[in-house]
């Protein structure tokens, strides 16, 4: 009996939930190392199809095999070889998923439901790059091609049908979102960075990506300010000029180590008069705070400190979690559909063999009849071949439909077996007539 063996989709890997950063950094694969590993997989003919994926938070292998346990071992060997790390160091951090769990996992990873920051958009691009690598290495074929295309579709649906990516979940992004709610278009707005600091600089970077008009930097050490301004293609101003500059800047990001407020509420009424009441947005990331909280009471001035931004992030994270529940439904629905397609693959060899058997039988009988009537030359004509095809199609239409649509409650395997026995598809002996036809 040669019913196609059950090809299982297997995922094995580790991520930020299962492995500490020391292990993750040891096993993190560069693009070249992924290519090398895929080359080894192909060389060793370990699997029909394989895919490798590595980011700072995860290393995963997806493969198609009829023996998942063996496959996982081979993946461990290849990883140990490529990264030159003993297998015993990382085996305990790896998980293994098969069947619908594996499919759901891939869909969840691509849709950023399994990411450290839920809904972050970079992961889809990383999966796409890894898939490109697998296709160019020739290790992704029918099943994985379909699987990843469906994963990309799932990710797209999750992004468009849920609000998972809609709320900022980092302090710097939350600040940009707020700036957009105040100013709408940031392209005419000027930004002033007071002091320096990782978070503040990141916020300025995001603002620059949003095409703000100009960035000014004020630092107690003017030279340091100049360096920073150069990084953002902006200009440096002296620290003493900060209050007077409020007349013409629109967004102020402050992150100094000053023990007292550097901008006081009492200065602001005068400043607002000079700037004709145009809105001002202060982002105070410093601890202790740089900006007097009372200025938030002045009309057209908006002040957010680091705690306020953190609150925004937490609320947004909760929102994303709510949206994630909707996203899981999309993933479940698409995983079930994909497995339905994969199941249908099992009948393909049987359909091919069935069609071949019937075609041979029809051709054989036509050949015999024509030979008896000295019409052998006509056998080669197009019309006869078309007739053979039509007879086969009409004859097999119902049996093939029967195989393709067994219904959700019936077992495809037993129907395949039934059809193979009914048509004796596993008998290797060839019909005498067919042999003769081939010889001629």
């Amino acid at each position, binding site marked *: 009996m040669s019913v196609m063996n059950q090809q299982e989709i297997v995922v094995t890997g580790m991520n930020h939930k299962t492995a500490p950063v020391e292990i993750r950094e040891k096993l993190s694969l560069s693009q070249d190392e992924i290519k090398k590993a895929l080359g080894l997989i192909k060389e060793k003919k370990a699997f029909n199809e394989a895919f490798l994926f590595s980011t700072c938070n995860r290393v995963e292998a997806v493969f198609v095999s009829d023996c998942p346990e063996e496959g996982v071992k081979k993946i461990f060997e290849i990883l140990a070889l490529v990264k030159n790390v003993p297998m015993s160091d990382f085996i305990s951090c790896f998980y293994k998923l098969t069947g619908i769990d594996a499919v759901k996992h891939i869909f969840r990873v691509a849709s950023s439901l399994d990411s450290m920051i839920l809904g972050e958009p970079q992961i889809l691009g990383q999966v796409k790059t890894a898939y490109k690598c697998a296709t160019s290495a020739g290790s992704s074929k029918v099943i994985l091609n379909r699987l990843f295309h469906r994963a990309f579709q799932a990710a797209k649906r999750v992004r468009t049908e849920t609000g998972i990516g809609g709320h900022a979940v980092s302090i710097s992004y939350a600040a940009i979102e*707020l700036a957009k*709610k105040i*100013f709408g278009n940031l392209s005419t707005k000027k930004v002033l960075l007071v002091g320096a600091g990782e978070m503040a600089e990141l916020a300025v970077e995001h603002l620059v990506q949003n095409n703000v008009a100009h960035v000014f930097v004020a630092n107690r050490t003017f030279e340091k300010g100049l360096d920073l301004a150069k990084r953002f293609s902006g200009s440096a101003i002296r620290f003493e000029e900060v209050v007077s500059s409020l007349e013409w800047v629109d967004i102020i990001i402050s992150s100094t180590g000053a023990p007292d407020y550097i901008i006081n509420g009492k200065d602001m009424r005068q400043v607002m008069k000079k700037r*004709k009441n*145009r*809105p001002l947005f202060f982002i105070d990331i410093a601890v202790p705070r740089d900006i007097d909280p009372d200025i938030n009471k002045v009309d*057209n001035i908006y002040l957010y400190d680091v705690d306020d931004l953190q609150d*925004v992030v937490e609320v947004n994270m909760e929102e994303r979690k709510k949206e994630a529940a909707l996203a899981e439904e999309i993933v479940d629905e698409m995983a079930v559909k994909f497995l339905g397609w994969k199941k249908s693959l099992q009948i393909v060899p049987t359909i091919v063999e069935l069609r071949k058997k019937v075609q041979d039988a029809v051709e054989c009988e036509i050949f015999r009849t024509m030979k008896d009537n000295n019409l052998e030359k006509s056998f080669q004509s197009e019309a006869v071949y078309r007739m053979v095809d039509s007879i086969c199609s009409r004859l097999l239409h119902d049996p093939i439909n029967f195989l393709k649509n067994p219904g959700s409650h019936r077992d495809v395997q037993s129907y395949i077996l039934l059809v193979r026995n009914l048509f004796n598809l596993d008998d290797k002996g060839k019909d005498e007539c067919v042999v003769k036809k081939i010889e001629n």
Partner: protein
Amino acid sequence: MISVALFLYILSFCFYVISQVQNNPFYRRPGFFLLVLGFMCTGINLFLDAVSIGHIPAFGIRNSLVIFAFSVSFFFVLLYLRFKVDLLGGAVAAFSGLLTGLALFFDKIQYIGQKDFSIFMTALHVFFTFFANAAFFTACVIGLFYLVQEKNIKLKKHGIIFRRLPSLEILESSGNFCIAWGFFFLTVGLGIGVVMSKQVFGHFLMLDAKEVWSFLVWFLYAALIHGRLSSRWRGRKAAVMAIIGFGIVVFSFIGINIFMDTSHGEYFMGNLIIRG
């Protein structure tokens, strides 16, 4: 045609409500298109009325309501074209639907008895003042939205309303836009009214309550525009002024007719027109 417009406004409102309830912006698009179609149907209805009576259809309660619905939708479309923001869609659909629905309860004017220059001027006067009122109504609603959004940002409340409302700058610019157009229409409408008054009554100003309050509204919006241009009234103050301004518009438009003696109502409803 007015029933079709009413149906489209109701349908549009339903789509906007579904979009809000299901938190799905997909339904805003059909809501927007249905609202634009409703606006077009209201316009066609006014055109057909004009053809049937052979004059600008600006007389009687039915036509007044239809013109108001048309002008409110007109400002919605204008704001969309100018700012590319589907602002107030649900509110405009509901309000225009309410106005067209009310219009169905009143008789249609079949014939205008007198067709001289003063009647033509009266019709233009009505048209322009209705457009001004629609602009002030839109500015008032935008002002309310501004106050809500400003409070959300100041008090750091980032709930669903914060997310749905556009930025303060868009709200302020669109409010300014409506007030500027409203002021223009009001100025032209009042100018025509003054000229017509001279034609009909022999005086430029009758100084009846309606006229006095109308000029008060004009001065108030002139002050508001000046305040905005000189940058004294920006943001919250300007939004509050837009709301107060519309309150006075409502009083001068409806309240005056109820509480005070005025020649306006009689003139429009008098023997110049014949109802069907």
